[in-house]
């Protein structure tokens, strides 16, 4: 994987907050961002009800909490945290960790 695109909802503060934080991070792969909300509607064609997902250049799609985990995994400083979260099977924590880091 050389590139990943995070699709987020620009009307959700949490998404915007974390994406802004991610823009400031040194990342291990190229990162792009795409707003899912077009004409007031969230595109939901890829991940069903989830408004946050990530697509890699090789076509892998990560939805919801997996996408949050990928947001950590792409960063140079927090990749270890992502691996730890994945290893302990606590994916639900990924979004909280992203938000906490973005607020710090």
């Amino acid at each position, binding site marked *: *994987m*050389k*590139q990943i695109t995070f699709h987020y909802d620009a009307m959700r503060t949490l998404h915007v907050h974390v994406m802004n934080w991610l823009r400031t991070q040194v990342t*291990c792969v*190229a990162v792009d961002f795409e707003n899912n909300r077009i004409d007031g509607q969230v595109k939901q064609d*890829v*991940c069903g009800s989830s408004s946050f*997902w990530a*697509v*890699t*250049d*090789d*076509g*892998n*799609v*990560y*939805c919801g909490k*997996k996408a949050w*985990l*990928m947001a950590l*995994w792409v960063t*140079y400083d927090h*990749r*270890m945290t*992502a*691996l730890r979260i*994945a*290893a302990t099977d606590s*994916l639900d924590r990924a979004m909280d960790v992203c938000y906490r880091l973005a607020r710090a």
Partner: protein
Amino acid sequence: MSPTVWTYLMYLALSIAITVWVARALHRMGRIFLVDVFDGNESLADSINGLLVIGFYLINLGYVSVALQQGAAPQNLEEAIRLLSWKVGLVMLVLGGMHFFNLYVFSRIRRRNALMKSSPPIEPDTRIRPATAPRT
């Protein structure tokens, strides 16, 4: 020759000999480790290896030189041997400490490299046909 001069000369000879022996051994045996740390880049590994040996010589010979005057002047052979043992022991401890510090730093770099090359820790939810050609 007084016991003090005899002790100093023995101290210098032993310390320099140990430093040179350790530096050569580290240079020879550390190369393969450095090549692995620097991802197979042999010229970079050789360059770092050479720079490390220079730093190693400077620090250790500097320490040996500074530590030469430490300790009371020995009055007899017994005191001279005790002083010599203490001084050479300190040099060996410094060498050992530096060696393990180097190993620690390089093992961290090696672990970091492995981490950077790791695959995503989770399986994707689904796959789509890539919309654009992968970036090179």
